[in-house]
C-alpha cells in the first residue's frame, strides 16, 4: 500500500529550488518528453544556453515574462513506496502569504540553503514559518555543495549556525542533507563526492520519514458537514451525519457527545458507500449513525464526553495577515471559518507583532499588515469548539474573511482561550 506525503519547498530561484524539484521529477521519471521539449523551446526563445528547469514550475505568462514565481504551484510524483504532492512556494514577494498557503497541509518542509552563502535571513524566516505552522518534519537542504568542493567543514558550519537558531524554534524533527541539485548528488542516490556524509539521500528520506505518528489519534473530533436524509422507502428513517474525522478515532458503540447541545448518545454504525466500517480515524470521510434522535446540524461537533474540545468565544491566536489593501487592528469585524462552523468575529486586541526575522515581540504594535503575524485576541458571535493548534491542525486553525470583499484575509492558529 502506498502512502501519501505532502511536502512544501521554500527558497528562491537562486537557491536552486527549481533545479532541485526538476531533478526530483526528472530522476523519478515524472517529467515528460513534451514538457521537456516545451521548456527547451522556451529557454531557446529567451536566449538561454541550456534548458531552464525553472520554466517547468513557472507556468503563468507573467511569470515567464518577468522571470518570477507568483503563486504556489503543485507538482506530483510517485515512487513505488509513496506518492508525493509538492507545494512549491516562491521565496520572495508575498513570501509569507504563499508559504502559509502551501505549507498549511504539509507533512514536511524543505528549506534550501546555498552552501556558499550560508544561513540567510530568508532561510530563518522559512524555518520559522514551518515551525509556526507545525509542519512535523523539516529538512535543511544545503545545496550547491559542488561549488564548495563538497567540503564537510563548510557543511558542518552551516549545520551549527542553523542549529543554534533552530533551538529557539519548536521543531520536532530536523534533518540536514548536503546536496548538489545540479549534479544530482544526494538527491536520489548517495553522492560519491560526499562519502563523509552518513545520512540518506533526499529522496530516500522522503520515502522513509515516519509520518504515521504525526496524526492525532487521541482527541476524537467530528465536525458535522451535513445531514443525510434520503427520504426513500428503503431508508425511510435514515438520518446520517456526514463529515470527515478531524482527529482521533471513532468506533461503533462509542459513547459520544454533541456540541453545542451537550447531549450524549452512542454511535450505532459508521457507514461509507463501500460498506460499514468498525472504526474511523483522520482523515476518513464517513457518515455516523447515532442511537438516539438528537437535533444536530452543520457546524456541530461530535466528540467523546471524557475528551471535549474547548468551547469558547474569546480566543487568542497567532494570526498571519494576508491582505494587501486592509490591515488588522482592534475593532476589525470579520467573518471567521473554523472547521464547519462560520461565525462573525471582532478583533479585541493585537497583543504583539512578531518580527519573523529576529523573533522579537513588538508589544507596541497595534496593527498587522500584509505578511505580518502576531498574537491577536478575538471574540466570536458563536462559541467555537477548538483545540490548540499545536495539538490539532484541523480543529486549531481558522481563516478570516473580509465581509466587504469576500477575500480570505487572515490565517489563524489557536493558542487557547483568552
Amino acid at each position, binding site marked *: 500500500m*502506498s*502512502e*501519501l506525503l505532502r511536502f512544501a519547498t521554500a527558497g528562491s530561484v537562486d537557491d536552486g529550488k527549481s533545479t532541485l524539484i526538476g531533478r526530483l521529477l526528472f530522476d523519478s521519471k515524472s517529467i*515528460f*518528453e*513534451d*514538457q521537456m521539449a516545451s521548456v527547451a523551446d522556451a529557454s531557446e526563445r529567451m536566449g538561454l544556453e541550456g534548458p531552464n528547469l525553472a520554466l*517547468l*514550475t513557472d*507556468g*503563468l*505568462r*507573467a511569470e*515567464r515574462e518577468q522571470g518570477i514565481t*507568483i*503563486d*504556489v*504551484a*503543485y*507538482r*506530483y510524483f*510517485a515512487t513505488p513506496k509513496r*506518492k508525493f*504532492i509538492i507545494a512549491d512556494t516562491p521565496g520572495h514577494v508575498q513570501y509569507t*502569504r504563499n508559504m*502559509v*498557503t502551501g505549507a498549511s497541509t504539509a507533512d514536511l518542509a524543505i528549506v534550501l540553503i546555498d552552501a556558499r552563502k550560508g544561513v540567510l535571513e530568508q532561510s530563518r524566516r522559512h524555518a520559522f514559518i514551518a515551525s509556526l505552522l507545525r509542519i512535523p518534519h523539516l529538512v535543511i537542504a544545503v545545496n550547491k555543495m559542488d561549488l564548495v568542493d563538497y567540503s564537510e567543514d563548510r557543511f558542518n558550519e552551516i549545520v551549527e549556525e542553523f542549529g543554534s537558531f533552530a533551538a529557539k524554534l519548536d521543531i520536532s524533527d530536523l534533518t540536514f542533507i548536503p546536496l548538489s541539485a545540479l549534479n544530482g548528488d544526494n538527491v536520489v542516490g548517495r553522492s560519491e563526492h560526499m562519502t563523509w556524509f552518513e545520512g540518506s539521500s533526499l529522496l530516500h528520506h522522503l520515502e522513509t520519514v515516519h509520518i*504515521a505518528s504525526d496524526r492525532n489519534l487521541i482527541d476524537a473530533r467530528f465536525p458535522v*458537514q*451535513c445531514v*443525510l*436524509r*434520503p*427520504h426513500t422507502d428503503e*431508508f425511510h428513517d*435514515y438520518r*446520517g451525519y*456526514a*463529515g*470527515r474525522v478531524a482527529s482521533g*478515532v471513532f468506533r461503533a458503540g462509542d459513547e459520544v457527545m454533541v456540541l453545542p447541545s451537550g447531549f450524549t448518545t452512542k454511535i450505532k454504525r459508521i457507514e*461509507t*458507500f*463501500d460498506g460499514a466500517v468498525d*472504526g474511523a480515524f483522520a*482523515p*476518513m*470521510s464517513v457518515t455516523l449513525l447515532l442511537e438516539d434522535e438528537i437535533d444536530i446540524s*452543520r457546524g456541530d461537533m461530535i466528540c467523546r464526553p471524557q475528551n471535549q474540545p474547548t468551547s469558547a468565544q474569546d480566543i487568542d491566536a497567532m494570526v498571519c495577515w494576508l491582505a494587501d489593501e486592509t490591515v488588522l487592528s482592534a475593532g476589525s469585524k470579520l467573518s471567521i*471559518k*473554523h472547521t464547519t462552523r462560520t461565525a462573525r468575529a471582532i478583533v479585541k486586541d493585537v497583543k504583539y507583532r512578531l518580527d519573523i526575522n529576529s523573533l522579537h515581540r513588538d508589544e507596541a504594535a497595534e496593527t498587522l499588515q500584509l505578511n505580518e503575524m502576531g498574537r491577536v485576541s478575538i471574540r466570536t458571535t458563536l462559541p467555537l469548539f477548538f483545540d490548540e493548534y499545536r495539538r490539532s491542525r*484541523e480543529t486549531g*486553525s*481558522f*481563516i478570516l*474573511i473580509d465581509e466587504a470583499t*469576500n*477575500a*480570505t484575509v487572515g*490565517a489563524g492558529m489557536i493558542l487557547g482561550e483568552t
Partner: protein
Amino acid sequence: MNYELSHLKTLESESIHIIREVAAEFERPVLLFSGGKDSIVMLRLAEKAFWPAKIPFPVMHIDTGHNFEEVYEYRDRRVAELGIKLVVASVQDSIDSGKQVEQKGPRASRNQLQTMTLLDALEEHGFDAAFGGARRDEEKARSKERVYSFRDEFGQWDPKNQRPELWSLYNGRHLRGEHIRIFPLSNWTELDIWQYIAEDGIEVPNIYYAHEREVFERDGMLLAVTEFVTVMEGEKPETRTVRFRTVGDASCTGAVESDARTVQEVIDEVSATRVTERGATRADDRASEAAMEDRKRQGYF
C-alpha cells in the same frame, strides 16, 4: 485496527469532503459532466459523498455536438441510474441562436465555443458553484489553480488574484452573478484516476481502451475520421489500433496508438508513458505556450 490509509483512499476522502462542503454552503451547485474519465470519477465521488441519499445537485453537459456516440450513451445511462437531473447546454443552440459563430476551415473546432455556452448556461440556471474534473497535474496553468476557484461576473479567472487556501477551510463567498469553480480532483494524477477506476471497478466508455479505428495524422496527433473533421490533402486515413487518453470534442481530441485493452494494461501504459496526457492528445493546448491560461482567464473549464 490498522490506522493506515492508502494514497487513493486519502485522495478519495479529501474529494468527498470538498463535495460535501459545496453542497452544504452553496445555493445552486452543478456538476460539469463530459463523459470523460475524470468527470466519471468525480460523479462516483459525489455518489459516495451523499449515499444513501441522492446527489443533491444536477449534472450539466456542455455538448459541442461533436462527441463520440459511446460518450452520449454512457452519460444517459449513468444519469438514469443515479436518478438525477441532466442539463444539456448545447453549443449548436448557441450557434443557431446567432450568439456564436462556427469556426471555418478544416481545422475548425468547437472547443473554444464551449466557454460561452458554459458561461451562458451557468447564468441562465443561476448556478453559483460548478464542479469541474480538472487536475493540477494536467497543465502548468492548472497547477496553480485553487480547489475553490473564484470567477467574477464575466466568468474570468485571475491567476494573480487568487484567494489563499489554507488547511481544509474553503472560502466560497461570492456576490450574486459571480461563481466558484470547484475542483475536487485537484490533487489526483492521471495514474491515480486509472488506479481508482481499477480499484473501484468503475466502468468507462470503451473508447478509452484499445480498438481499431480509422485515423489520420495531423500536427503529430492521430485524429479520428468522423463527420466533424475534414481530412485535408496529403492526410492519409488508415486503420490503426488506438485508444483515447482524454475524451473531448472529436475535432481536437487525438488518439494514441495502444494495445491496452484492459484497465490493468492501461495502468501499465500510463505508468510507462513519457508524454503528458494533454501533450499527446489535445490540439487545443498546442496553440501556444499559454493556451490553457488564456482560455481559463476567459472562463473555460
